[in-house]
C-alpha cells in the first residue's frame, strides 16, 4: 500500500496528496498525521489537494476526521487547492465538509493558520492572566 508523505516545514505539517488514494491509504494518512502532530508538537496542518481530480464521500469524511482529530490535539487544519470541478461536484454530491477550513493555495493556508495562532495566543494571554492564581492544583 502506498503511503502519503508528511513534511514538516517550520511549525507546520504539510501533506501534499499526489496519488489517487485507495481507501486504506486514506485511513493510514489519518493515523500517521495524528502521530506526527503529537511527535512534532506542530500546531498547523496543511493538506494540499491540488493534485486530486476527485474527492468522494470517503475522502471527504477523512478530511473532516483529520480536522477534528487535529483540533483535539491543538492543531489547526486547512485544506488547500481544491479544484473548481471538484468543488462543483462536491456541492452536487451533497458534501458540505463542515468544520473544515479551506484556502485557495498553500500560501493562503499558511496565512490562515498564522492568523488563527495569533488569535489563540491573544486568548491564551488573556485567559492566562485570569486563571493563573488558581491554576496549580
Amino acid at each position: 500500500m502506498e503511503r502519503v508523505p508528511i513534511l514538516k516545514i517550520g511549525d507546520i505539517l504539510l501533506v501534499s496528496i499526489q496519488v489517487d488514494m485507495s481507501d486504506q491509504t486514506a485511513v493510514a494518512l489519518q493515523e500517521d498525521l495524528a502521530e506526527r502532530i503529537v511527535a512534532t508538537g506542530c500546531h498547523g496542518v496543511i493538506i494540499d489537494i491540488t493534485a486530486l481530480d476527485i474527492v468522494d464521500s470517503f475522502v471527504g469524511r477523512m478530511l473532516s476526521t483529520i480536522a477534528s482529530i487535529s483540533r483535539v490535539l491543538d492543531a489547526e487544519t486547512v485544506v488547500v487547492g481544491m479544484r473548481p470541478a471538484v468543488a462543483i461536484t462536491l456541492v452536487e454530491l451533497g458534501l458540505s465538509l463542515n468544520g473544515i477550513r479551506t484556502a485557495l493555495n498553500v500560501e493562503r493556508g499558511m496565512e490562515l493558520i498564522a492568523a488563527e495562532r495569533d488569535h489563540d495566543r491573544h486568548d491564551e494571554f488573556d485567559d492566562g492572566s485570569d486563571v493563573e492564581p488558581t491554576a496549580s492544583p
Partner: protein
Amino acid sequence: MTSGVDLSRPQAQTVGSDEDVVRVRQLVRTVAVAVKLSLVDQTKVVTAASELARNTLVYGGGGTVEVTAVDNGRRPGITIVFADSGPGIADLELALTDGYTTGGGLGLGLSGARRLVDDFDIQTAPGQGTRITITKWSR
C-alpha cells in the same frame, strides 16, 4: 493511461479490493475523456463511479463494473454497470435517502451518485444482489 482501451467494446473490471476501486476510477476517467465529456462532467461521473464501486465492494461483497462508451444518435456518453451478488437492498427508498448508512459512512453514495449522473437505474432485492446502471451524456 489513455492508451490500450478499446472504446468499441465494454471494459470490465472486477471489484474485490480497495485498489480495484482506484482502477475503476481510472478506467471511467479514460472513457469519459474519450467520449469528450466536459471536465466538470468527467469529475461528476468519476465521483459517482467511485461511490458505487465502493458500495459494490463493501456492501455487495465484491462484484464487477462494466464501462461502455455509448452514443444515442444525438450525443456520446458513458454507461457504467455495477453488479454484485451480495445481500441486495431491502428498503431502496431509505437507502437512497441522504445521510442513511448501515456502515458508518456519510450515507451520500447512492443519493449523491444519482444526482451526479443523467440516468440512474437500480435493480435489487433481498438475497438477489444489486445491479446499478448509470449514464452521463456529453453536453
